[in-house]
């Protein structure tokens, strides 16, 4: 692939060079160039469940829903990472949301349309209060504490037999049809995707990103970074808690294993695979990982081994993430130019 006497040159496409900050679209092709990458995935998200229905793949519809759920967690992770907080315990948000919705439905018989919002807000509040004391920690240390939190909850529930203990709370109200569930989660996914992208681009989002880059400079600017971080955790936790509440109603049971390690690892892996900082990368990552994991189910226990190896290869071989790679390829082109021989 390396040509003798040539070297590769990488150029931005003209439209990209013009479009980075100021829009000067001059033809429908340029408009398409800008719009397609944004519209196509949304269209795909909305159409895929229909396609799956038509082709009779009921099971893959469920996989699709699972992918959306994980994707919410992954986007929450990405949002939190944009303030420099690396969470390894998305299962905490997921689990708290799931248990609140489960308990409200199981003990108080609240209907779904009440339990999910209450679980989303209440779960976010509880998680924020839990994480607030350790907000000063940075890097992998914050990650390790968040990793320990869900396991801690798991043991607490096991020890105190709270909410059904090891048996869980079975027989929760399920969604009336699969379509309600599907489009509810797709809607949540799209709202999160666009809201997060929007927030990050505002001045407020700038402060968020600034905290990750250099929190000293932000503090010297008189901004209370801890309060901003708390807000970020709240938003991330709300996304996670919604996912949890949704999931417990979707499968109709909530048990201790909502705090399982998989729920923490999957979102992180998805973001790393898809590429962080853009939210779209997180979504792309989950929509690769989750179906891949389902596909590998046929290999039994080997599935996890293959799956984690694929993850390792991607992390090691493509550190920027797939989304950034695709984005670069879309906006740039390579060409070979001759290398002038040295005299």
């Amino acid at each position: 692939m390396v040509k003798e006497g040539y070297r590769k040159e990488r150029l931005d496409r003209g439209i990209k060079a013009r479009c980075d900050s100021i829009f000067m679209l001059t033809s429908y092709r340029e408009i398409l160039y800008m719009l397609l990458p944004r519209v196509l995935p949304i269209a795909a998200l909305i159409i895929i469940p229909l396609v799956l229905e038509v082709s009779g793949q009921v099971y893959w519809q469920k996989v699709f829903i699972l992918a959306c759920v994980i994707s919410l967690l992954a986007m929450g992770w990405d949002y939190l990472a944009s303030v420099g907080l690396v969470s390894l315990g998305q299962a905490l948000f997921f689990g708290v949301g799931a248990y609140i919705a489960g308990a409200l439905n199981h003990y108080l018989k609240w209907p779904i349309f009440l339990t999910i919002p209450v679980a989303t807000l209440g779960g976010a509040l509880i998680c924020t209060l839990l994480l607030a004391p350790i907000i000063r920690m940075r890097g992998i240390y914050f990650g390790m504490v968040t990793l320990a939190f869900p396991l801690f909850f798991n043991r607490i529930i096991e020890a105190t037999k709270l909410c059904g203990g090891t048996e869980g709370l079975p027989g929760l109200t399920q969604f009336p049809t699969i379509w309600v569930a599907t489009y509810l989660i797709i809607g949540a996914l799209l709202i999160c995707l666009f809201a997060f992208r929007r927030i990050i681009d505002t001045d407020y989002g700038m402060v968020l990103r600034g905290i990750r880059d250099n929190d000293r400079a932000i503090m010297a600017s008189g901004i209370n970074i801890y309060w901003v971080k708390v807000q970020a955790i709240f938003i991330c936790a709300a996304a996670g808690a919604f996912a949890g509440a949704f999931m417990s109603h979707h499968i109709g049971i909530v048990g201790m294993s909502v705090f399982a390690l998989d729920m923490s690892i999957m979102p992180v892996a998805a973001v790393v695979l898809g590429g962080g900082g853009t939210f779209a990368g997180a979504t792309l990552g989950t929509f690769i990982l989750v179906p891949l994991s389902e596909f590998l189910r046929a290999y039994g226990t080997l599935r996890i081994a293959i799956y984690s190896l694929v993850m390792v290869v991607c992390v090691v071989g493509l550190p920027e993430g797939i989304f950034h790679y695709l984005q670069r390829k879309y906006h740039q082109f390579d060409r070979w130019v001759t290398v002038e021989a040295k005299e």
Partner: protein
Amino acid sequence: MELLIYGLVNSAILAVMAIGLSLTFGVSGIANFAYGGFYILGAYTCWGLFTQLGLPYLLSVILSMAALAALGFIFYWLVFLRVRGMEISEAIASFGVGIAILEFLRWWGFIGFYYNLPGFLKGSVEIGGVFVDCHRLIIIGVALALVIFLWLFSHYTKIGLAFRGVAQEERTALSLGINSDFTAALSVAFGSALGVLAAITILPTGTILIDKGYDALLFALAVGLVGGLESTLGVLLASLILGFAQTAVAVYGATHWMMVVTLGAIIIVLAVKPSGLFGKSKELEERV
């Protein structure tokens, strides 16, 4: 008395488990999440060499440690080198490798209760009215020996000094002609070998099981986090604290809460002193 002896045994187990992980982190700043995988892989390698190939026990212990050290070394060049500095990628990549090893072994058929390593000594003794099997006493011995050995190693040998150099200031070490990549790879190798030693010391108390790998990682992390990941003294102290806390809870409360105590300790210690009891990461201490 029971509390004293079994607390000590428990602490020793935790210390032996954690020391490999903490060594690697202390030298190269790598949290090797594949540790659990190496731990179990080493145990099975030793089992295979000993029972299937019929090698002498000591030889198979040494061979399996050497094999895993080599694997750790290769693992550094293949994986860690490419993601150095990106903490999250490091954690995910190594964790992925660890899971892959464990689940591959499970798929290969290493399930069930056939796999057992002999203890170093049989029989049991009575100390102050409490029966302890000799093997557990040996674990205490191994833990002590390891700590002393590590201290001597890091203070009086050339590689050990290089380790310490890299641990303290990587750039200065580079300018002094220490190859920091080589040293880091060595540290991963060394950590893995210690992991195998830990497995061979601890697992004869039960049987070799895949899930023990996950436990080993969790406990090693717990001890490391409480004590400060890079400090040998911290590991020692943290395993004593956790070991006695667990045993006390088990004896006077319910066994139920053993794990809760461990995880609670992590959360509290990290919230109060983020670098652990004996950690020295200055950047974590600064109020920024």
